[in-house]
C-alpha cells in the first residue's frame, strides 16, 4: 500500500474526540499531512457512539494505506468491533488499535506523519501503554 495512514479518534464525547485530534496534530507538528478525523458522541450530540460518524470519519481519512482507529471505552470499542465484523462498513485496511486514547493518538499521528505503514502506526500507538509516568 502507498499513501499515508489515516487516523480516526472515537470518543463518547465530541469535545474529547475533537480536542485529542487537535492535540495529536499539534504535538506531531504534522499540519495537514496526516488525515485525522474525530468521531465523538452520538449524531444528536449526546455522550455515546455513532456508527455513522465512525464510518464517515474512516472514509474521510482513507488514502489507501489503511486506517487506524483509536477508541476510548465501552460502546466506542464495541461499535468499532461490530462495524469491522460487518465487513463492508469501513474502508479496507481499517484496524481497531489497542492503545491508550490520548498518548496513543499522539504516537499514531507522529508515526503516520513520518510515512510509516499501518503496522508501524499500530505498534507505536500500542507502545504508548508502556510509557510509565512515575
Amino acid at each position, binding site marked *: 500500500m502507498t499513501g499515508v495512514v489515516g487516523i480516526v479518534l472515537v470518543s463518547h464525547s465530541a469535545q474529547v474526540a475533537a480536542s485529542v485530534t487537535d492535540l495529536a496534530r499539534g504535538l506531531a507538528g504534522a499540519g495537514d499531512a496526516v488525515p485525522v478525523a474525530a468521531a465523538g458522541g452520538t449524531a444528536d450530540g449526546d455522550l455515546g457512539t455513532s456508527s455513522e460518524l465512525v464510518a464517515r470519519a474512516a472514509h474521510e481519512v482513507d488514502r489507501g494505506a489503511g486506517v487506524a482507529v483509536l477508541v476510548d471505552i*465501552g*460502546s466506542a470499542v464495541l461499535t468499532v*468491533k461490530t462495524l469491522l465484523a460487518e465487513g463492508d462498513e469501513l474502508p479496507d485496511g481499517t484496524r481497531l488499535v489497542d492503545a491508550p486514547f490520548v498518548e496513543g493518538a499522539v504516537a499514531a499521528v507522529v508515526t503516520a506523519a513520518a510515512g510509516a505503514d499501518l503496522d508501524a502506526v499500530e505498534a507505536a500507538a500500542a507502545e504508548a501503554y508502556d510509557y510509565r509516568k512515575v
Partner: protein
Amino acid sequence: MLDADFFLRWMNALTEAVNREAGRLTELDAAIGDADHGTNLQRGFTAAKAALEKDAPDTPGAVLMLTGRQLISTVGGASGPLYGTLLRRAGKALGDEAEVSREQLAEALRAGIAAVAQLGGAKPGDKTMLDALEPAAAALDESFTAAREAAEEGAAATVPMLARKGRASYLGERSIGHQDPGATSSALLIGALEEAAR
C-alpha cells in the same frame, strides 16, 4: 413453523415492552451504570419499528437482520452493538428460509449469543445479558414459556453477582445487590417471543 409475520410480531411486542419498561431499565442502569439503558433501547427499537414498517422484510432472517442494523446505527450505547450483533448473527443463521422451527430459532439464538460473548468478552456469571440469554436459549428447545421463565430467573440471578464487564465493573463490590439492566432487557426480548407465539 414460524414465518416473517411471527418475527414481526416478536419485534413489535419487544418494542412495546421496551417502551413500557424503559423507566425501570433506566432506573436499574442508574444504580450501576450510566442511566441511559431504557432511553437508548427505546430510541433503537423505535427506529427499528419504522424501518420494519417501511421495508416489510419477508423472511425471519431479514426481520432480525434489519432490526439489528437499526440498533447498531441508532442506539448510541453499548447495548446497540451488543443487541445488534445478537439479532444480526441470529438472522444470518436463519438464512433466507421463509419459515423456521422453534428449534432452528433456538439454534440461531445460540449463534447470536456466542457472537455477543465474543464481542463483549463476557462469560456467564459476569452479571451481563448473557446470564439471561444463555439459559433462555437452552430452554427454548422445550417451549416459549420455558424460555421466558429461564430468562426471568437468569435476570433475577444477576442480583447477587459481582459485575465483571462494562461500566458496572468499576463499582466492584458495590455492584452486588442490583439486577443487571442488560439481563433485564434480555428477559424482555425473550418474553416478547412468548407473546408473539400466543
